[in-house]
């Protein structure tokens, strides 16, 4: 669906995007992550033909914008980071204009249906400048969905929204995912990407560090198993005992809670071993749960300059 090879953008002062190679498959939700200034927006601008790459190859739907500009543009819906509107138009006029640009038949039905879906129908004759940030973002979504695109490119779609707004936008994204639309979502709200993305790419300082599914990302940065244990009390000897257990990589005791990372390199389950050690210290286990590293933890590992060496193993060529 989207394919780039060594995509590079150099400005006089800075190399914004450095030889990015990525592949987005049809029907998937592709999370595109990176801290501010990582080069995400520049990459998206190149995908949309708004910025000309300095070098590298780029294809959308198996073709290029140079060859099939109108076919590609008719198949893409875009929600940009900043929702732009024409000051002189009401929301309905704005959508009607875009429907004309995309040559949509029976545009009235489509506009009304989408406006109804996002709860903006009654505000259709108001100018977007009078809308709240959340309403404007929803209107941007309606505009992007008007022509039923095959590929939806979302640049920070929930940025600046309140929890209600985020929930509504998430609902829209999930609906599109179910209908088989390919979604390319760039965001720094990691929990949102974690919920929806099938595969994730992480950019940092213009480079694409890694591209994989969430489990693959977790595995590439941290193979340990995280275990949280709650005990009745913490004996003085507990810390020493845990340090002597070979499968415990590290641990942290906070009140009655013990956070541990266990060796995950083999298939063995070390929980029984840990339970025995804790019980041997003279305390009683109230609860135990294992959890995987969150996307946020994985992301931080990849983008933290101090441990950047860690990510080199997973670096995409």
């Amino acid at each position, binding site marked *: 669906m989207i394919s780039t090879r060594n995509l590079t953008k150099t400005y006089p002062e800075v190399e914004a995007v450095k030889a990015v190679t990525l592949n987005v498959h049809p029907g998937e939700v592709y999370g595109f992550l990176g801290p501010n200034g990582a080069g995400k927006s520049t990459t998206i*601008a190149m995908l*949309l*033909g*708004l*910025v*000309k790459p300095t070098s590298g190859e780029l294809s959308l739907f198996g073709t290029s914008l140079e060859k099939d*500009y*109108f076919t590609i*543009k*008719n198949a*893409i819906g*875009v929600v*940009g980071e*900043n929702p*732009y*509107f*024409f*000051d*002189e138009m009401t929301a309905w006029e704005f959508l009607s*204009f*875009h429907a*004309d*640009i*995309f*040559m949509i038949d029976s545009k009235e039905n489509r506009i009304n249906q989408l406006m109804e879906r996002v709860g903006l129908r009654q505000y259709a004759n108001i100018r977007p400048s009078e809308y709240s940030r959340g309403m404007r973002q929803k209107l941007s979504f309606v505009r*992007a969905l008007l022509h039923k695109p095959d590929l939806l490119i979302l640049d920070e779609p929930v940025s600046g929204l309140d929890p209600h707004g985020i929930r509504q936008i998430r609902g829209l994204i999930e609906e599109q995912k179910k209908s088989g639309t390919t979604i390319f979502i760039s965001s720094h709200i990691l929990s949102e990407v974690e919920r929806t993305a099938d595969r994730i790419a992480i950019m940092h300082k213009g480079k694409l560090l890694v591209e994989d599914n969430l489990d693959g990302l977790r595995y590439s940065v941290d193979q340990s198993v995280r275990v949280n244990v709650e005990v009745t009390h913490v004996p003085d000897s507990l810390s020493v005992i845990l340090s002597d257990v070979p499968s415990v990589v590290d641990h942290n005791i906070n009140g009655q809670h013990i956070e541990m990372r266990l060796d995950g390199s083999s298939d063995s389950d070390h929980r029984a071993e840990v339970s025995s050690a804790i019980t041997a210290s003279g305390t009683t286990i109230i609860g135990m749960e294992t959890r995987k590293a969150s996307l946020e933890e994985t992301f931080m590992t990849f983008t933290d300059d101090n441990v950047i060496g860690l990510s080199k193993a997973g670096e995409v060529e």
Partner: protein
Amino acid sequence: MIDSGKMYKQIQTAITIHKRDLRIALFSPALYIVTTVSILVGIVIIRNYLSYIESNGLYPMPDLFSFPFRWVIIVTGVYLAFSAVVAIARERESGTMELLFYGPVDNVSYVIGKYSAQFTLYCLLIVLYLICFLILSNIAGIHIPESFFMMMLLSLFTGAYLISVGIFVSTISKSVRSATLAFLTLIASALFIQTSQALLLSIAPESDYYNPVLLLQQLLAWIQTLLSWLSPFSYLNYGVDEMLRGNMIAFLRVIGLSTVFCLVFIVSSIIGLKIRGVRQ
């Protein structure tokens, strides 16, 4: 080979942009202020002519409507060229140009759509002015000669050229401020050169050898000649003068050159937009 499918889409997109821009322009109060001022200028000039005829019993010139009409279209042309200058730069500055380019809008359809909206507006105003001048001639009981209509025809071509210059300045400018500045500098430079040359010509050099005044006069004369080859206003004046003299070949040449320059500026605008990009 011409891709007819692509061309059809470009035309459709240009029409949609054209309709939007025309609608926005028609709802702009500035348009009505400029139109009213233009018509008032025309009326004042004609009234002065009529007073002259009344007191002297003589016609000040064979075609009473030609001079006031020239003023009216110059004011209108400058206004429309200026609004063309602002139109694209403002869209780039506010981000709405980027929004348009998310969809099936390319450099060609965008520039053509913008240009055609301004030109349609200009044509509508010319028709409005024609109606006003016909009413004035009816009230004053003075016949409008054929040359007036020829001048009106010529003004369509010089106006088209002027608007294309405005569009070009807009496509290569970063912001409304820089576009406005560039356009005003262009007009101010032309006026400055014209005034300076007139001023220098009034100074009689003391000696023919190595006189800086003579050199400056010569230099400004060259620039003036160059400007007369480029300025839409010069084309209008030259075309009208030649037409009144009965030199129809020169008149047609002015129409042809205005069309050529107009096309050159439209193509340059498309290329300029491609190079400059849609982002600020």
